[in-house]
């Protein structure tokens, strides 16, 4: 595995190179292609990927290095002191033009129907420096489309044999089911007999493929790349906290893509996280605040609903049943409420099988299938599996976006049947609360609001808004902030960042963090003594 250039240790010797007239200093052993990135020069490449071993097969990254007799592949040549590299010299451009012409010999002209169109590196580089017209007159090679299993479809005609997928399956997933079969112009990506791309991480070959040869069946023919709106977010599939890009078309999430973060998920996203996005678009959302009057639901204004909720909560012990997918901000405000009113907070987390990505350290589909159970633990919430809190008949049960679907554990049904007043704050109104809750306040899900999650290593990461909220739904931290203010447990905050600042000022483990310092890569919570809280052993 090659490491990214920004993980520099101080004792490493630095060398200075000049690339395209710009001089930079990079650690010894850096390749020219990575050194060029530091000065903002993108050297065209296909087979090179920072997360994979260097192969040097595509010959696209040929650059002109002073005093070298021949052009050098930038991905496989390490920099040397005083080297002068020219990426766009006449000689280098001519060579890359030739490479592109060869790649296009058998590449079909089907960009209009190709899913990769718009985010295709072959398209981009051909447009940038390729020939405008083809000189090839013979018939093109044809191979039928093959289903690679899992979510992957292989279109051999479009393949440029960069072998990124082969190296990913071999060196990162460590399950070498792909290979290059045949030779010359008959070569294609072959799959080992009887094996499919069913590994939990195999779907990454679709993102790695620079052209439209490996396609996601789920995304097939659904949208064009240029129609999508993209926002930075965090996957809520498990407690790993993989950085993702939420891609929406007409306010509907159509795809999740991994967002590179070398501290968390590198360049990858598992199948579970990638395909489990349809719930985000669900239509049966709670979209208006409702209050139960004489046993009947009545849709009311936000002010009236908040007053009703505050009246129900005032002066009573409160038990918060929080979803572990709530943001730190929301959980913090609920915790403020508990601190003021007395009571306790619990969360319920689904467990599943763990699926590590073997070639990458500390990257796995975690057993805990929720984004922010760690944040909940840090803020004093207890796991329901470790014992249910006692709920008295004159308490209030605040259900904070727990969907209450599936078979409910007895601890939970015990809490529900205690006779306590139920206030529901969430994205949907669960069927079990339909006849039970007193007030229902609609909130947005994590793609419709801003906030932070804490992953299982205690890294606090921001997510941004990607869609608009349905109906009158408000961000959950905003609703909680209004409630907290009405109950006299704190001042209302009107920015997610302000809530987070308050959280950082209140809880020692979040001290010193803010939205500005977190940026889009996140930062770990400071206290190493809280390791036990952060990574409890989960038996599955």
């Amino acid at each position, binding site marked *: 595995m090659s490491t990214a250039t920004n993980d520099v240790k101080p004792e490493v010797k630095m060398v200075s190179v000049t690339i395209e007239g710009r001089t930079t200093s990079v650690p010894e052993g850096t390749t020219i292609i990575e050194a060029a990135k530091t000065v903002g020069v993108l050297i065209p490449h296909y087979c090179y990927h920072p997360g994979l071993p260097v192969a040097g097969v595509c010959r696209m990254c040929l650059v002109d290095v002073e005093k070298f007799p021949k052009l050098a592949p930038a991905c496989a040549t390490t920099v040397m002191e005083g080297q002068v590299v020219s990426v766009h010299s006449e000689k280098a451009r001519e060579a890359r033009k030739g490479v592109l012409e060869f790649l296009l010999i058998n590449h079909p002209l089907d*960009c*209009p*129907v190709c899913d990769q*169109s718009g985010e295709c590196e072959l398209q981009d580089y051909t447009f940038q420096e390729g020939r405008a017209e083809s000189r090839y007159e013979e018939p093109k090679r044809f191979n039928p489309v093959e289903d690679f299993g899992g979510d992957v479809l292989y279109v051999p005609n479009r393949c440029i044999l960069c072998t990124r997928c082969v190296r990913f399956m071999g060196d990162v997933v460590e399950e070498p089911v792909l290979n290059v079969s045949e030779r010359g112009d008959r070569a294609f990506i072959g799959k080992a007999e009887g094996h499919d791309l069913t590994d939990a991480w195999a779907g990454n070959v679709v993102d790695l493929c620079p052209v439209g040869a490996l396609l996601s069946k789920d995304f*097939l*023919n*659904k*949208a*064009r790349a*240029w*129609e999508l709106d993209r926002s930075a977010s965090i996957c809520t599939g498990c407690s790993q906290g993989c950085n993702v890009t939420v891609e929406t078309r007409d306010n509907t999430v159509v795809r999740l893509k991994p967002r590179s973060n070398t501290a968390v998920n590198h360049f990858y996203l598992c199948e579970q996280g990638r395909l489990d996005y349809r719930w985000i678009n669900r239509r049966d959302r709670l979209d208006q605040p409702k209050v139960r009057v004489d046993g009947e639901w009545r849709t009311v204004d936000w002010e009236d609903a908040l007053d009703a909720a505050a009246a129900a909560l005032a002066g009573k012990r409160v038990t918060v049943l929080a979803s572990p997918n709530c943001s730190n901000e929301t959980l913090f405000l609920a915790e403020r409420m508990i601190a003021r009113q007395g009571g306790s907070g619990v969360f319920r987390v689904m467990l599943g099988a763990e699926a590590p990505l073997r070639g990458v350290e500390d990257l796995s589909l975690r057993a805990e299938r929720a984004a922010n159970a760690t944040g909940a633990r840090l803020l004093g919430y207890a796991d329901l599996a470790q014992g249910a809190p006692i709920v008295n008949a004159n308490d209030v049960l605040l259900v904070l976006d727990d969907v209450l679907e599936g078979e409910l554990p007895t601890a939970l049904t015990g809490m529900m049947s205690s006779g306590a007043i139920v206030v529901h704050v969430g994205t949907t109104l669960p069927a079990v609360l339909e006849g039970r809750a007193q007030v229902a306040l609609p909130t947005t899900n994590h793609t419709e609001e801003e906030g932070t999650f804490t992953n299982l290593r205690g890294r606090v990461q921001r997510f941004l808004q990607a869609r608009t909220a349905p109906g009158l739904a408000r961000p959950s931290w905003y609703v909680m902030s209004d409630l907290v203010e009405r109950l006299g447990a704190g001042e209302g905050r009107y920015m997610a960042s302000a809530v987070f600042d308050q959280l950082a000022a209140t809880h020692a483990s979040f001290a010193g963090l803010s939205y500005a310092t977190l940026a889009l890569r996140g930062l770990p919570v400071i206290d190493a003594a809280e390791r036990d809280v952060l990574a409890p052993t989960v038996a599955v």
Partner: protein
Amino acid sequence: MAIRVKVLERPIEQVSYIRSTLSGLANTFRHMVDPHKVTMQYPEERWDLSPRWRGTHRMLTNETGKAKCVACGLCPTVCPANCIKLVPGEDEEGNRFPLIFEIDEFRCIFCGYCQEVCPEEAIHLGRHYENAEFSREAFVYDLERLTAQTHPVSELWDPADPKGE
């Protein structure tokens, strides 16, 4: 009080209408026998349209009668009036095909960019001008309507032959 109008005394040659009437009738009779006609006998007679006339759209079909469109999404992208709605999907054979293809002819500014950008030569502007409908909704042409049109399609401007000769 009665309104008093000042009447000017003029010579009879100036106030008589007979001379003007006769001169008008003379003009009328001259045009009756003049072979150069200005009025066109619509609808029996129609205008000859320029080959590059840009009227309402038509979607061309392949040999099997299906629209040539592959839902590549270039026309809604290039459309400056945002009048094309396209939802891509797959047809029975698994090929890329528009599930919904609608053109709002009210919004359309007939620039012809959609025809120019189409890689499959599927969507065309039409060489016709009769578009009357009984409802506003009928001006949103769906795929069925677009493929059912039979009028000739407009030709693109050829830079090598700018005057169309």
